[in-house]
């Protein structure tokens, strides 16, 4: 699965997610990626999210929307909302996932309960990226 979230100079947010699904899946299986609120969500008043991971769990947990609501009602930062919601989903459903989040103020949230997740973001002249837990590389571009 791949995904992107962005905020433009006018403070407008968008989110996008695309996937081939799960290897060896049944013919005709739909994933969370196609479900708004599960794989993708964006609201200019709060933030934008794209998710990846165990699709059936993400769908049952409405993961993208749950992260946004943790920010809206729980007043969590993008990072806390992302990581706490992912941990809650994995605790409840015993499967892993990851998510990227941008808040309306441009806060970045990156989290995953899986072994790894590739991610990258650009802000001004800095490119940030990583895959493993705790990895956060920065290079000037």
């Amino acid at each position, binding site marked *: *699965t*791949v*995904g*992107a*979230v*962005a905020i*433009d*100079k006018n*403070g*407008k*947010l*968008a*989110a*996008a*997610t*695309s*996937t*081939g699904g*799960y*290897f*060896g*899946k*049944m*013919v*005709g*299986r*739909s*994933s*969370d*990626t*196609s479900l*708004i609120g599960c794989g*993708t969500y*964006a*609201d200019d008043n709060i*933030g*934008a999210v*794209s998710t*990846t*991971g165990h699709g059936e769990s*993400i769908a049952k947990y409405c993961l993208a929307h749950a992260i946004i609501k943790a920010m809206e009602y729980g007043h969590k930062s993008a990072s806390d909302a992302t990581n706490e919601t992912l941990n809650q989903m994995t605790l409840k459903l015993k*499967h*892993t*996932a*990851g*998510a990227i989040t*941008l808040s309306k103020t*441009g806060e*970045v949230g*990156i989290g995953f309960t*899986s*072994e790894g*997740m*590739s*991610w990258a*973001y*650009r802000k*001004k002249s800095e*490119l940030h990226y990583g*895959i493993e837990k705790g990895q956060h590389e920065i290079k000037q571009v």
Partner: protein
Amino acid sequence: MEPIILVHGGAGNIVSSRIPLKFDGTQRSVEAGYKILQNGGSALDAVEAAVRVMEDDEGFNAGYGSVLNLDGEVEMDASVMVGADLSAGAVTVVKDIAHPISLARLVMERTPHVLLAGDGANRFAKEQGIVRLAEGSLVSPYARLTLEEFKKQQSTGTEIKNPGEVG
């Protein structure tokens, strides 16, 4: 507002041989999206451009290089959402389309619906002038190998290990 673009290239147990592909692809994806933002473009255009880069890249499970279903076919899903008015579009179980994310955007912009599936999504793509690729064009050698290993493990009754991403 300072523009920002953030991308992911999938979660799971990423095998070490695939890590350089992931680093390279996510960075190219970010640069494609950021260029649009830097030139005053919209967040929507930026996320679409960023995802298209990864859909073209065999190193990611989307577009070319997608994992295969049990029949050995690529069936893809995509969705997009705009924060200003909560407009959204999505497609599911689409075949032989290079950029499902752009088809999802067309569903959002040119239909009264949020989600189109299977044959209906492919028919809509044709109506919109999106070229349908030759059958099997999106199947990569790595995806074929992964499915073969999965089927082998299934037939021998060995514990099935996920060789890559979880989704």
